[in-house]
């Protein structure tokens, strides 16, 4: 175990696609054991930030450390060690379409623990599937047979397969009905508490922010303009933050949790 309290450290990050600069001097620390919500308008680069952190997007400058490992340097020895310790839920679930849900969950396990028996793999898959709130009979279904919400849960089951320390969720509640979204929020909180996870959560869902996030980071103007508890952000004078939290939807969510 590391003594470092920050699970993710992003410093001076710069991302650009051609002429279009997405991030400039972006700094962000995610503390161990917290649920950090990341918000920002469409196109402000929330997903790009996540992709940079998990190593899918090569930044043009800056430094990123995840679980005390720099994934951007040429030293790739420990990179897989880090990948084994995180789980990622993509927006659409990103399930492998030719595999059943149970097989999807087993993919990371087979990759890292080839000596596990099929029996144990099946049991682990089933545990994770139930843990993520899916019914048992979803295990042998193919992704195309699942609804959008079930796909997300199956994606979560796969992300949890390796008992990660760090969980990335990209808009987990988008496209879910309010009841399903609330359940998903509850599930995230519960998992975070029982498994001691650190969660990096991108969302547009104001209810999610109020209900489960310990801290919220706001991306605007190519950087993190504010980070802190939601009550602190409510007092912010920044026009975008003000509009975000005090617009009609923000007010409704506020009152609900006020």
């Amino acid at each position, binding site marked *: 175990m590391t003594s470092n309290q920050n699970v993710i450290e992003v410093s001076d990050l710069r991302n650009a696609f051609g002429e279009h600069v997405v991030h400039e001097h972006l700094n962000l620390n995610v503390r161990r054991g917290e649920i950090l919500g990341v918000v920002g308008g469409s196109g402000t680069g929330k997903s790009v930030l996540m992709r940079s952190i998990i190593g899918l997007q090569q930044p043009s400058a800056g430094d990123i450390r995840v679980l005390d490992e720099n994934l951007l340097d040429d030293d790739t020895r420990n990179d897989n060690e880090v990948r084994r310790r995180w789980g990622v839920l993509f927006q659409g679930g990103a399930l492998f*379409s030719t595999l059943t849900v*149970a097989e999807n969950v087993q993919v990371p396990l087979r990759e890292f623990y080839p000596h596990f028996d099929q029996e*144990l793999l099946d049991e*682990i*898959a089933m*545990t994770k599937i139930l843990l993520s709130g899916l019914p*048992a009979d979803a295990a042998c279904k193919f992704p195309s047979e699942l609804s959008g919400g079930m796909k997300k849960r199956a994606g979560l089951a796969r992300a949890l397969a390796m*008992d990660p320390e760090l969980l990335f969720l990209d808009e987990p509640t988008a496209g879910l009905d309010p009841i399903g979204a609330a359940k998903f929020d509850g599930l995230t909180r519960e998992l975070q508490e029982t*498994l001691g996870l650190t969660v990096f959560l991108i969302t547009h869902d104001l209810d999610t922010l109020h209900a489960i996030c310990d801290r919220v980071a706001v991306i605007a103007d190519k950087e993190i303009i504010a980070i802190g508890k939601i009550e602190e952000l409510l007092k912010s004078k920044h026009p975008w933050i003000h509009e975000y939290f005090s617009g009609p939807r923000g007010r409704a969510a506020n009152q609900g949790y006020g």
Partner: protein
Amino acid sequence: MLVILRLLRQKYRSMSEAVNFEIDETGEDGVSLRFAGNLIITEIGDMDSRLRKLDYPVSSIDLSGVSRIDTIGAWIIERTAREHQAQILHANDEAARLLQRVSEQQVENIPKLFNPIPIKRILHEIGDAVVTSTRTMIAFMGFIGQVVISFLTILIHPSRLRLNALVMRFEFVGLRALAIVGLMSFLIGIVIAQQGAVQLRQFGAEVFTINLIGRLTFRELGVLMTAIMVAGRSGSAFAAQIGTMKITEEIDAMRTIGVSPIEALVLPRTLATIMWMPLLGFYASIMAIIGGGLLCWIVLEIPPATYIQRLREVTPLTDFYIGLIKAPVFGAIIAMAGCFQGLQVKNNAEEVGLKTTAAVVQAIFLVIVLDAFFAVFFSGIGWD
């Protein structure tokens, strides 16, 4: 090499550092298992299979020596405890919470897929194949009907023809195929001439090589080889394009907007292929004749002028007509097989690959079957 070894060692380190348990046999109604170390996925190793092999009763499981535990460790403990109806002792807060969470779930076995005895399965698969191919055939007939109706509609309302799409397909199906079709036909011409020359020389009839080249290319090979090339190039592309559009729900979007996918996607592709096939076929024949002529000139020392003179004498115009009549029919079959298979795609990415393969196989098969019918037919009407 060193790096690879180090990576491998890292990956399998978990096996050597397996978490351990001791068996304490002092209990009265069974042994006590005392665990030590970390009960986490990276350090479990073969503990699970060793626990499964225990064939004597376990009365208690002592977790006092466990420092860290995760859901997988908790599940293994919980399962062992459940199987032996053993008591779990000295679990710390973290372990207790996880065990509680895991025990709440009724973990069932994953239902096994339908897997009957081999002979039954063979019969099942044969039956399945028969039913599927019959259904595909009927559906394909229906599809051809739809395309024809859509074509007639366009004849009545020519303004509904998607000219842009048609021109785009023109470029892809025809223009960009010129190089490869030309090269292929040129080489085939050389091969025919060379084989003809070798075989006919035995009878001192080398000059008949020209008959072989002229008749074979115009009547059969020019169009047939072009059809195979177009099926591999364009038929497969149609299936893959339309199949992908099916998965991304673009086809559904078209339908809801009121655009007929047959009119917007299938018809331009089919028309483009029908129009280009005779041109490509003729072009292929000419290229084969040039290739054959080159070989005749070099190997048999027949000068080009004589070659052309002889070609005109021995190749009847009907051979040219036959090629010209067959080509658009083949084109229609190839394009429609491609589009049809593309529209059959459902569910997942693997299907796109399967249907693309099916499109090419089906197209080439149908082309060769039709070619056999044409051969008999044209002989029948005296065009031989």
